[in-house]
């Protein structure tokens, strides 16, 4: 096995939290509000359905092929040729998505804080940080996520509380003015974000208790939903139904003014957020690295960390000319592009596996095979 480490279910929850929330809380409120207006806080609940669906598909595949990652059972299901092709596509998706995430992160920093610094500095430093995490292995990533998440979640709970004073809850009325359709439309783009929990397919075999992976990630999806809903609520209550902002959450933090002294804390928020994004990028990075290593059959995945890092940094630069293209892609194309890999292909795989009755025996190194198969 390429990865010798094991992570606990709690660490998995936190890793998945960062995988979605890392960028979601900065970019999503604006996307949801674009369609759903004052009902933006309801949209995450529709995205949640997509997230849970992905969790169901991936864990179902995981149960049929215990101890195997997505890339491994891909070849078992579709044969060596098609399997390798699909595997390449998945690796492309992981790297491409990660490049988008890295670029999103850097654009935010350049727009809001350091307009004079060349963007490559941020692209390269965050990729380097993530590379260090990936090299350190899954266990270290799990512990990092475990350590950072109280600070991260705490901050994102604290901000809506601190702006309580300037909230106008009546901004949320009337509820469902134009029916349910805009709310669902507002949940569509975030749905792709929620679907990023599909990376679970690469992590499931390295859980200490793989059969409990489904509950853990479903819980993570729930926490993410609540978090995004609260953020959406706060943004609408403060800025009204048309916030018209690039990064509503950050502007929200700028508006904090408690008792004349607690203000100008948005830099602090960014510090916490950067740490969260680093974990998110590392999870995607790790998935791509592990997938590449498994597909090519190298003995140690660490040797592909640097090449993929270079690809990520370069791709993040050339992928978009400007932030408008980025926002456009995320709002219009991502809702279809993301789910293709997150659940459309995995669902097809599952159907094929069921029809052809393909299964794999429990991994030999596990002392208690019955436990891993779970209940069917």
């Amino acid at each position, binding site marked *: 096995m390429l990865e010798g480490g094991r992570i606990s279910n709690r660490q998995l929850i936190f890793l998945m939290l960062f995988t979605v929330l890392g960028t979601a809380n900065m970019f999503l409120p604006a996307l949801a509000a674009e369609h759903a207006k004052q009902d933006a806080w309801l949209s995450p609940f529709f995205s949640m359905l997509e997230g849970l669906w992905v969790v169901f598909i991936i864990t179902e595949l995981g149960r049929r092929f215990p101890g195997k990652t997505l890339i491994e059972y891909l070849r078992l299901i579709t044969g060596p040729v098609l399997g390798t092709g699909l595997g390449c596509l998945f690796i492309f998706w992981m790297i491409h998505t990660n490049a988008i995430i890295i670029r999103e992160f850097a654009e935010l920093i350049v*727009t*809001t*804080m*350091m*307009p*004079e*610094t060349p963007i490559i*500095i941020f692209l390269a430093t965050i990729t380097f940080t993530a590379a260090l995490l990936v090299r350190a292995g899954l266990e270290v990533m799990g512990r990092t996520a475990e350590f950072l998440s109280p600070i991260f979640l705490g901050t994102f709970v604290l901000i809506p509380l601190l702006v309580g004073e*300037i909230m106008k809850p*009546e901004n949320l*009325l*009337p509820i469902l*003015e134009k029916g349910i359709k805009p709310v669902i439309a507002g949940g569509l783009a975030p749905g792709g974000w929620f679907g990023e929990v599909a990376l679970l397919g690469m992590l499931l075999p390295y859980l200490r208790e793989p059969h409990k992976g489904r509950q853990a990630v479903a819980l993570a999806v729930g926490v993410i939903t609540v978090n995004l809903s609260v953020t959406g609520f706060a943004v609408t209550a*403060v*800025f*009204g139904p*048309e916030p*018209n*902002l690039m990064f509503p959450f950050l*502007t929200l933090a*700028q*508006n904090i*003014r408690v008792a004349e002294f607690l*203000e*100008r804390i948005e830099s602090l928020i960014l510090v916490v957020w950067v740490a969260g994004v680093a974990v998110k990028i590392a999870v995607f990075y790790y998935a791509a690295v592990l997938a590449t290593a498994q597909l090519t059959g190298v003995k140690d995945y660490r040797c592909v960390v640097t090449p993929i890092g270079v690809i990520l940094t370069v791709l993040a630069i050339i992928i978009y000319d400007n932030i408008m293209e980025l926002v456009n892609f995320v709002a219009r194309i991502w809702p279809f592009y993301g789910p293709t890999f997150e659940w459309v292909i995995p669902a097809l795989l599952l159907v094929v596996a069921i029809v052809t009755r393909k299964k794999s025996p429990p991994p030999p190194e596990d002392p208690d095979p019955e436990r891993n198969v779970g209940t069917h």
Partner: protein
Amino acid sequence: MVRRLVVINMLITLIIMSAVTGCWSRREIETLAIVSGVGVDLVEVDGKRMYRFTAQVVKPGQLAGGEAAGGRGGGGVQKPYLVSSTLGKTIWEAERNFTTQTSRKMFLSHTEVVVIGEKLAREGIQPVLEFIQRKHDFRETTLLLVAMGPADTTLMAAAGLEKVTARDISDMVVNTRRASVSFPLVTREAISMLQSSGSQAILPRVIHIPYGHKGVPTGLRLNGAAVFKKDKLVGWLTPEETRGWMWVTKRVVSGVVPIPVPGKPGENRISTEISRATASITPSIKNGRLVIKVKINEEGGVGEIPAPGLDPTEPEVVQQMEQFLAEAIRREVLAALRRAQEEYRSDIFGFGDTVHRAYPKVWKKMEKRWNEEFFPNLEVRVEVEASIRRVGMSGKALSPK
């Protein structure tokens, strides 16, 4: 051995960290011009329309030593700030042209107030709000005001109790809550007023009185408010009308309301102090007619009674005072309503928003013609309930014998 390696590694990391951080885009405080107040005007230069950007820049060195230097009574004591104006075809260009006349880069993150000149306000404030919202270093907690006349003279006015004029204005706006005849309004609120079709923008007005006349002292005054329609200034509210608007929009914090003396109408007035005020706006549709009900609850206390011998503790007197008080508040509200409905046709009260919330379908039909057709003819029922809770430190009014 391993432990030593760890220590060495950490030391190297620390050295690298301290060496490589913070050098890019660094801004040393002595290279920055920290702006505390901004004024934006529209002016005509050689027949061309230009924006004039006025910045009040703090001089930190003088700010600290200002008092000591002033105490020695030296004639050459400099003001702790610099006011400088630049021109440009756009606001941002004007702001950048600042570099042609000062040695430091403008730092806008600490801007406390933005004053908009009257001419610009009449042409539309969209460019100013857009500039503040899009530019990364401005904050949406910056206070907005409209100057009667140009904005630059406002910032050039001598500071009062504070050391810098902009600070003076921003503290004044907050302080005036004690009188509730003017109000603080941050950029965020102005933007949401502007974006909503069910409410129009209103900003506090600041007047600079350079020379004393008719017994009015010189200096800066907060006086009433500027009423907008879309983003264009259409007229002013007097301080009384401003408070009338504030009653409805729940902005009244404190203040003094004079009422007539019970039993002696038209004579000297009793002062009552507002200690608490709330309001509710409820739209309703009866027989196809839209009616807005405004209910105001106020609690106050008596502050001065210039009617010798009047006993404010007598139930009848109390009852009458409460009635007068409710009447006085109602008058203020009606004055504001009349101005907004008949003269300006601008829904500064946000009645449209309440209709939108309560009757989304009706609102859809009204939205387009709200300010022109529906709001001016809207029936608004104002109910005021005023209670007097306290009479102060004395009993019967002082009576000279």
